[in-house]
């Protein structure tokens, strides 16, 4: 497999699982961060939790932003109680990516609200799935146009909602 093809920003793995249209828009630089309060509150939580952890926000190859690297674990900080498939895939991708570089780690997810910690390990099955996802991501972001809007339960909370749904009669 072409290893260059595998390198994407972690957030793209996340977006791929959430909505392919969102992934496409984001990959073209059409971002909405500045307008989203949810993203903002995510930031605030991030900055205020774990003030004593030293290695915060480690940037790997300009692609992965690891929240915390802590011994044999990389930690992710999440607000919501249930880890969605997207968050899980993103973390698995980090583990996969590091493994390609010869660094084997496990993942820990901290749920801030629930004060719960979950451990994640990369299995062979996960690796296969990640590889499949990476290929699919590549297909989406190299497409000439954006995937059309598909109504998702997530849309109403999405920062792209107005962009996606605005139209005139």
């Amino acid at each position, binding site marked *: 497999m072409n290893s260059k093809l595998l390198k994407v920003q972690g957030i793209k793995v996340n977006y791929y699982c959430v909505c392919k249209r969102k992934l496409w828009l984001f990959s*073209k*630089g*059409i*971002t909405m961060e*500045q*307008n989203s309060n949810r993203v903002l509150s995510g930031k605030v939580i991030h900055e205020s939790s774990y003030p004593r952890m030293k290695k915060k926000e480690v940037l790997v190859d300009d692609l992965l932003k690891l929240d915390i690297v802590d011994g044999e674990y990389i930690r992710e900080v999440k607000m919501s109680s249930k880890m969605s498939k997207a968050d899980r895939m993103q973390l698995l991708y980090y583990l996969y990516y590091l493994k390609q570089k010869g660094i084997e780690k496990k993942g820990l997810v901290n749920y801030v609200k629930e004060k719960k910690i979950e451990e994640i390990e990369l299995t062979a099955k996960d690796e296969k799935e990640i590889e499949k996802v990476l290929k699919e991501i590549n297909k989406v972001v190299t497409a*000439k*146009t*954006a995937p*059309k809007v598909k109504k998702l339960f997530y849309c109403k909370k999405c920062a792209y*909602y*107005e*962009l996606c*749904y*605005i*139209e*005139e*009669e």
Partner: protein
Amino acid sequence: MNKDYYIFSHGRLKRKDNTVYFIDGGDNKRSLPIEQVDKLHLFGEIDLNSKLLNFLPRFGVMLNFYNYYGYYSGTYYPREKNVSGFMKVKQAEYYNNHESRLFLAKTFVDSATHHILRNLRRYEEVSKEVIEGIEKERNNIETTDEISKLMGVEGRIRKWYYKSFNEILKNGFKMNKREKRPPNDPVNSLISFGNSLMYTTVLGEIYKTQVDPTISFLHEPSTKRFSLSLDLAEIFKPLIIDSVVFKLINNRMIKKDHFDNEEGICFLNEKGKKKFISEYDKKLKTTIKHRKLKRKVSYQMFIRLECYKLIKHFIEDQTYKSLKAWW
């Protein structure tokens, strides 16, 4: 949503540590909650330093400057942060193709005309002849094949429109002829002042998206102006500014003593400007339940939505259809 701040007094804007202060001529110090500022509008004579200018882009704050008469003179624009090279290239393609440029230019003019007619229909005093004249002229938009001809159509529509102002306006306000440079009577100066504000508001909304403010379609892109702001302002001037002007005059909120006259230039004095801005701000914040989005949308947000529709048009996602107020 962050707020706009208007400074009328003379004084000094400075940054100290992580706070921005305004110190007026009487040495009164007031801090500005910079995290909550969208744009700063400076009407007074203000000194500022580079420390401040280096600080503002962090918060995406725009500084708009107005001259002595209250007319827009320029913007200090934060270092662009919402850039998409992909979008920019696409937008430029639409400008470069005569057909696609004309298409967008026409929709802007058509939407402006829709809002003009919407204003006029609210007043019984406006003669049928004017409305029919404009409707007839509106039919010419579709068949026009040149931007310059389209401008001609727009000019004729505006002539009808401004002529009927004298039928709408009460309390002794009259407009002889639309005169921009410089405005020479109170009505003209209200329109000009409003249009300055509209321009900076539209620019502020464009800035929040990846649309490039310098690539325009109806107006010629020029190096001096963010001309896409002028394009989009066409849609919103009759919808927002003119209705504010009608309200201010007809409800006796603005009176003749809110204007000054110097060397043939008529302009709002400080009290007048404040009156205008407070009505304008109210209008921008007014919300409408959007029939497609199914949520409340402010007039200000309607401007951003035009940018979103343009983005979708440029990336070949959905053909642009301009706003035509339905409420």
